[in-house]
């Protein structure tokens, strides 16, 4: 059995704003094994990026971790200072930010930025070796190494995304957190990149947390999948279980709304009701205003996030039994 490298317990994170408190991550728990990849899905604004940023404690000024633990190989990150966190970033855990396209420094050549990361975090490269490593990394993500000496504004959106992925992989981290890393890639490049990530995972035992709104991509990369709704993790199970036997009504809705490219052209469905506003999360189960199965207890009491058998976790008073 592989080792658990990350154990998140009851993580809760808020943003303080003039209008009140935004409850972006509420009591979230999950684990991640060495070499495992966990997909994180959920509606826009449900807290996926907030979870990712919390893990590395790369938080906005108005964000506060209110409680819980983030144990990476036994060390709890929550009480650590900025200074104490720094050695873990990049070397142990690297991140591809959702703002990837915009996270390169505009005044430096793209290749030099990766070389700098290599030198700062590993420190043992000669310049020629570092350039060699950048060439390798560029090839790995499908970028022409000839573009290494160009500036970020000379790259297309997808090229910038790939450069940032190359940078995240540069120090052979134990865990890569990738937040919507392929939004600007065509499906062929995306396919090649996902394969590459899979290979790396198998080769060096790298673990991955992969955030995407695209459940088809999540299906391709994830061993297990976590589904978030309104700041809560509402379901967590193997990819196969989530796609074929979802338990939570929100997951069921998510799975049936996917449009097809070549099959019959269906009317597209939307989830009825408004997306929740995290300034005023609904009482009880946060999904109740939109849930077709909601009853009184759902409005009153929050369902517990618990195992429904075989490590299939869900938080719902009326779990569904469906086969998709």
């Amino acid at each position, binding site marked *: 059995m592989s080792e658990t490298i990350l154990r998140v317990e009851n993580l809760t994170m808020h943003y303080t704003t003039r209008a009140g408190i935004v409850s972006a991550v509420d009591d979230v728990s999950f684990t991640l094994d060495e070499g495992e990849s966990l997909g994180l899905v959920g509606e826009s604004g449900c807290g996926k990026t907030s979870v990712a940023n919390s893990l590395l404690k790369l938080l906005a000024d108005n964000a506060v971790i209110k409680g819980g633990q983030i144990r990476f190989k036994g060390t709890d990150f929550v009480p650590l200072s900025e200074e104490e966190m720094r050695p873990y970033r990049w070397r142990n855990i690297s991140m591809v930010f959702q703002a990837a396209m915009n996270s390169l420094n505009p005044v430096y050549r793209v290749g030099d930025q990766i070389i700098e990361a290599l030198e700062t975090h590993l420190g043992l490269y000669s310049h020629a070796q570092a350039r060699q490593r950048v060439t390798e990394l560029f090839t790995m993500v499908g970028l022409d190494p000839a573009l290494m000496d160009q500036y970020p504004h000379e790259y*297309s959106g997808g090229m910038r995304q790939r450069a940032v992925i190359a940078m995240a992989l540069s120090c052979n981290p134990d865990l890569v957190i990738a937040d919507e890393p392929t939004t*600007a890639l065509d*499906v062929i490049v995306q396919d090649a990149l996902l394969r590459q990530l899979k290979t790396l995972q198998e080769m060096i035992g790298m673990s991955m947390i992969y955030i995407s*709104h695209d459940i088809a991509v999540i299906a391709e990369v994830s061993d297990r999948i976590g589904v978030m709704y309104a700041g809560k993790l509402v379901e967590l199970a193997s990819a196969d279980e989530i796609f074929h036997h979802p338990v939570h009504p929100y997951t069921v809705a998510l799975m049936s709304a996917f449009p097809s490219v*070549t099959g019959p052209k269906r009317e*597209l469905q*939307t989830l009825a009701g408004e997306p929740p506003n995290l300034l005023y999360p609904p009482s009880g189960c946060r999904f109740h205003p939109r849930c077709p199965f909601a009853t009184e207890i759902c409005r009153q009491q929050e369902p517990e996030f618990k195992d429904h058998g075989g490590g299939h976790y869900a938080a719902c008073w009326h779990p569904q039994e469906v086969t998709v």
Partner: protein
Amino acid sequence: MTSSEALVRVEGLRKLFPLNAGFLRAPTSFIHAVDGLDFAIAPGESLGLVGESGSGKTTTGKLLVRLLDITAGHVFMQFDGQVLDVARLQRSDSKTFRRKVQMIFQDPYESLNPRRTIFDTIAEPLQVQNIGNVLDQQERVAELLNLVGLSPPSTYLFRFPHELSGGQRQRVAIARALVINPAFVIADEPTSMLDVSIRTSIMQLMQNLGTQLGVTYLYITHDLAVARYMSTRLAVMYLGKIVEMGATEEVLQRPQHPYTKALLSAVPVPDPRWTRTPVEIKGGISKPIDPVPRCRFYDRCPLAAKVCEDNDHPPLEDKGSEHYVACYRV
């Protein structure tokens, strides 16, 4: 569509970026980002633009809104019977142009001004064009925030972009582009960060504007399911060239160009049990730098033959019922 009916007409459009140019040093080579495009979009139509990353989609969009200078070719647009030559706009036409044409940018982390509130961001086009007083503007902005699913609007109006999620920023960018009822919208991956449900309501919103107000779109996306829903015709780009163009359903159901076929076979399937047959093109990295005169897809094409190497890039030809393909072997 005859050319006089088109809302947008693009002829021989090219954009070259010099490479390795320095102070007092002439460039030694060029990136052929957009290399001879011809297409037209009818009023109320939506043309989907898909293609490989780096093939020139964003550059095309930016040329159409005059954010980049055209290297060669023409862009004509027609509003209320008046034809504008976009590269040579008269000063008096500039304001009309800005009112009629809007672009939604690919990266919502770059395109929203971090120091402006959401209200100011969305209201800016109204302010620039002097439309309505402050109260009217507030009402209009609130209306749009509701339409893009950011409700209640009062909780978003005075936030700054960094206080929003990625998909929320994208929706602000969409609201901003639609706030002055433009006639032509260039949407560059506008919903790439949105989940299916919210994406669907935004696509429905954009389509309703299309049918009710006659808004015309150039819709850039890498998501073929989105392209299928949003566009009546589809153009596929590869290294600065359109390699296939036709009615969307026709192109998706009967793709002819080897690149389009590969693209369709790579669409991920939402099922972890599914194992895909590998994409039928050679790997490799496309170079838009000083391309040699032969088919641009030659290095990666499973059908490549001598004719493809001995001749310049194939012309885009009608293979019947306005299904255009640029390939010697189709």
